[in-house]
């Protein structure tokens, strides 16, 4: 059995990470509504496949530069749910030790460059990561994600063009979820496809069904291999839909309900689940096992995170510089 070149265990691993992403995010949403989490809560509900599918195409030495809806990619890099929860809760156990909040995390040691807020700023950074990887000559690649909204910023243009000129091994993944906060794609750009820009940089551009995790995986795999072969950067646009508000405070009433209904029917987890069942990789007992395992893991993670101490005010000035 072999689908998209993935083994049964790998397919289940992909499924697990999709589920884990959704569950962990749901848990975070609950903590937010319980008043335990402050500030922005940006979820990837309904578009998990973009992050999981693309990141699954990477190998251990590769480096990711995720954006704010890429929990799936972080998890695949080995970031633990408890660390993410502690991050949201502002605890020392969080990846920024309380210094930064919510989605602004990563861990260089695990090949994960922490996100910063200004949209698209990660794009040139990924180019630079790839520049360093290219010099090592070991075929390692960088991958970065960004939204349809981020694609309007100057750093998108400068970063991709620079990568193209230097022919560095980097994969640019656009999560086109059709909205940037309240701004629909039609107000972000006149073109329906962000991938159309690839031609203007002389790099490969593809469009993938963003809610089909294997389609995303395949597109990413191809781009990663191209990068490993020294053939430079690629741009992959994943068509998806933001199914929740921009952040959890936002009811997204500006999004036509029908659009949401259409996309709800294309839910990436349900879709993948159905295929796994069809392929007899997943059955009810396996699914129940995963559900149970995840619920237990998450409860333990929440408990760990809530037990993690807050940093102390007296340490506020520490760590601005390396020495």
């Amino acid at each position: 059995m072999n689908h998209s070149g993935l083994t049964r265990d790998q397919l289940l691993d992909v499924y697990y990470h999709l589920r884990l992403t959704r569950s962990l995010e749901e848990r975070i949403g609950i903590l937010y509504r319980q008043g335990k989490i402050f500030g922005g809560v940006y979820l990837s509900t309904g578009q998990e496949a973009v992050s999981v599918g693309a990141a699954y195409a990477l190998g251990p030495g590769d480096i990711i530069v995720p954006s704010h809806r890429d929990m799936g990619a972080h998890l695949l890099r080995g970031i633990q749910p408890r660390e993410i929860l502690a991050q949201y809760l502002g605890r020392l156990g969080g990846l920024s030790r309380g210094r930064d909040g919510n989605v602004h995390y990563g861990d260089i040691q695990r090949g994960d460059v922490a996100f910063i807020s200004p949209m698209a700023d990660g794009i040139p950074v990924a180019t630079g990561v790839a520049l360093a990887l290219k010099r090592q000559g070991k075929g390692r690649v960088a991958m970065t994600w960004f939204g349809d909204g981020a694609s309007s910023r100057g750093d998108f243009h400068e970063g991709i063009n620079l990568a193209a000129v230097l022919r560095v091994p980097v994969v640019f993944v656009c999560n086109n979820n059709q909205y940037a906060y309240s701004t629909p794609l039609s107000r972000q750009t006149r073109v329906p496809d962000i991938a159309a820009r690839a031609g203007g940089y002389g790099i490969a551009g593809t469009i993938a069904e963003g809610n089909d995790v294997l389609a995303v995986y395949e597109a990413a795999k191809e781009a990663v291999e191209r990068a490993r072969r020294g053939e430079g950067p690629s741009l992959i646009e994943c068509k998806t839909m933001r199914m929740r508000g921009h952040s959890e405070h936002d009811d997204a009433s500006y999004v036509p309900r029908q659009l949401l209904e259409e996309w709800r029917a294309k839910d990436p987890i349900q879709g993948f689940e159905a295929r796994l069942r069809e392929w007899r990789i997943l059955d009810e007992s396996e699914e129940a096992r995963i559900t149970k395992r995840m619920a237990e893991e998450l409860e333990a993670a929440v408990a760990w995170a809530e037990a993690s101490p807050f940093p102390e005010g007296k340490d506020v000035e520490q760590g601005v510089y390396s020495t």
Partner: protein
Amino acid sequence: MPEITYIEAIRQALWEEMERDERVFLVGEDIGVYGGAFKITLGFLEKFGEDRVIDTPIAESAIVGSAVGAALMGLRPVVEMQFSDFIACAFDQIVNMAAKFHYRMGNSVPLVIRGPSGGGVHGGPFHSQNPEGWFVHVPGLKVVAPSSPYDAKGLLKAAIRDPDPVIYFEHKYLYRRIKGKVPDEDFTVPIGKAEVKREGADLSVITYGAMVHQAFEAANRLSAKGIEVEILDLRTLLPLDREAILGTARKTGKVVIVHEATRTGGVGGEVAAIIAEGAFDRLDGPILRVTAPDTPVPFTAPLEEAFLPNADKIVAAAQRLAAY
């Protein structure tokens, strides 16, 4: 006079200026259909139409650059930065294009850039910054930072009517937390004029923005201890009101400068320098600064609390100085 919130004052200023002058228009991210991240412009699109309430792509540099172009053609753009932190993305257009145009070519650039700044809302390093210090070092700009609903409304109207580029920093912590009397009739607060918000003979606190409220709390506590604090609210940070700064320094002889922005290179240094040069002979003690430390704005509550200046820290500094 009705009592309104700080955020309502900003809304009213925008609304009334748009009604008064059809050259005025708004441009920014999510300001139309959504009414802005803080809902300041909710209802503006319906009232003023798409030509005057312009939702843009995420492109701060182009937003400011295009506003300069429109301003040169005689319009009066008011740019919203969704958070003032993102003004860094438009830095070049602000400092090189907007600020220098009049000096170079003699043409006015009537442009306002406004946005929420400041901490205290667990926004973390990228949604809490106080970027005013950078712009105070840019000849050609004006920079304002109101502390009250009255000033917020009056300064925003003045900024919109001003022929030169004005950066208007509104403090998001104050948005819905403070209320104040604001007259119904049209008024402006002049750019370049500070205001003594509390009279006092013993010591001056020179501050602006959200810290004015911390200064008031400190002053009340200090008054109970027999120290009468004068509070000078700078209101405009560029050009600074030298006369008012020197006036209060000369009056009390003791000055504490307070700002939420980080210390080094902040506005406080400039104020201290003005005093150390122009009122040296009347000083009875060192010039103290109470500011945030030199770090990014931390996210988590205990760190952010330690980061932010507050009444306690002002009281401590004032007591030290009073005892000098």
